[in-house]
């Protein structure tokens, strides 16, 4: 919101380090866990900096209401929601306009990766619950949701990895956190299917000139590729054990 003329000089120190000590091309610490929810068909938990986000997948399952079923493919439905305790000020639990928009863009970011035509007349529900938010929660949510879809065994062309880039104190940086998003000058979240290098989500808040747009776009795509590796490791860890051996129960 407050991206116009905020004093952002404190966001980058003389050594070129950011408030939390990161370099401009350094991601926050990331941890991905797979399959921690018993009831869901697939689930994943991600810690992305201070973000703590759970994603669950139910389906393919029967569609309610019935008339919303499609004869040739599954209906993908997505709900992004922030818990009331996830923010500094209590967040009203009713879905906000922001959450409705983010639910839509997350759905559209995931859908290109799914072979929905393999499951006609069914629905696949994706729930993304933000337990603690710290900027970049839509990207973190997409990373978790994509792993949860794989964990649910939904046929997929690729995982969807997401990462943002932005501009703080006049410099293009990767993965903006909450403070940088509020005080900084721009935020450019991207989702990518890395195997085919196709962009499935792109949003932009804030001003970037030609050069900055290209740099930020490339930073965000690099970030996506790093996330992709972490997603793969998390899934391999769950299904084949940490060392690549079969470590299933």
């Amino acid at each position, binding site marked *: 919101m*407050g991206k116009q003329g905020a004093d952002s000089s404190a966001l980058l120190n003389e050594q070129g380090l950011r408030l939390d000590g990161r370099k401009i091309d350094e991601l926050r610490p990331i941890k991905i866990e797979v399959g921690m929810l018993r009831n869901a068909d697939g689930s994943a938990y991600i810690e992305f900096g201070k973000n703590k986000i759970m994603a669950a997948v139910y389906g393919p399952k029967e569609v309610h209401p019935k008339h919303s079923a499609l004869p040739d493919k599954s209906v*993908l439905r997505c709900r992004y929601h922030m818990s009331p305790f996830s923010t500094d000020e209590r967040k009203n639990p009713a879905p906000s306009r922001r959450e409705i928009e983010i639910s839509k*863009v997350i759905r559209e970011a995931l859908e290109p990766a799914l072979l929905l035509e393999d499951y006609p007349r069914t629905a696949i529900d994706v729930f993304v619950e933000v337990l603690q938010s710290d900027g970049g929660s839509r990207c973190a949510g997409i990373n978790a949701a994509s792993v949860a879809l794989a964990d649910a065994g939904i046929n997929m062309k690729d995982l969807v990895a997401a990462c943002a880039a932005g501009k703080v104190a006049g410099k293009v940086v990767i993965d903006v956190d909450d403070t940088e998003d509020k005080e900084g000058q721009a935020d450019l979240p991207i989702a990518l299917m890395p195997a085919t290098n196709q962009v499935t989500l792109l949003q932009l808040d804030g001003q970037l000139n030609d050069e900055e747009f290209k740099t930020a776009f490339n930073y965000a795509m690099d970030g996506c590729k790093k996330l992709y590796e972490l997603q793969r490791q998390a899934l391999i860890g769950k299904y084949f054990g940490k060392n690549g051996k079969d470590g299933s129960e």
Partner: protein
Amino acid sequence: MSAVKKTLVVEQLKRNQMNELLSKGKRIDGRNLSETRALHIYPNVIGKAEGSARVQLGNTEVIAGVKVNLGSPFPDTPDKGLLIVSAEVLPLASPYAEPGPPDENSIELARVVDRGIRESGMIDVSELVLVPGKHVYAVFADVSILNVDGNLFDATSYAVVAALMTTKISKYELNADGVPVKTQEKIPLPIQTVPISSTVARIGEFLVTDPTAEEEAVMDARITLVADDRGNICAGQKGEPGVLTPDQVLTAANTARLKGDEIRAILRQDLENVATG
């Protein structure tokens, strides 16, 4: 959660025809791929609003009205005025529109248009303050969609921009008791730049600028980027469950800058024609 809704369906024959034309660099309405439809802007169409504009972009037609009152600032921005953009597809605008609370498409539309205006810094909200933390001007730009024929994002954005540019607000002053009172003096909004939104649809391997409703019904993905008058891209949104290659994104960014200058000139011209009678 999304429900499946009634939408425009384009027949397979027509799809084939569209694809065939696209491969020859033409579109079904005769335009070439990067051509926008005729744009007409009629400012000051609603006398009771502080600012207004009706916009026709081809057959897409929208009307924007600006109302301004004195309000309280948000607690986290006590030294900034309020700027709120909303948009609604009226039930009279299309056979596929239905009355009711705004659906996710309307919400996305309003939020993307709002983002373009806000992030470009079009209005210097720090000048819309009477008493910091207490009394600020609240600028509401509400858009009603009157006729749907594709590219609501750009038409809505042009209408809001034109309405804001023509807005004259009543100046408030503090009386002896420190209570704000409305004066007779009318002042324009503090406008710093003119953001222009450009939407490109991907149909197969082709990118088309300013898509019609028919083109939107067959498109794979859509990307809207907003450029200010210094050539910065200041807001963006990719939509629809399709993909874009990195090259297509950069092409869209270039289109946004080029079209931005083109449309900005039309907008200024239309507003000037009215001002000079």
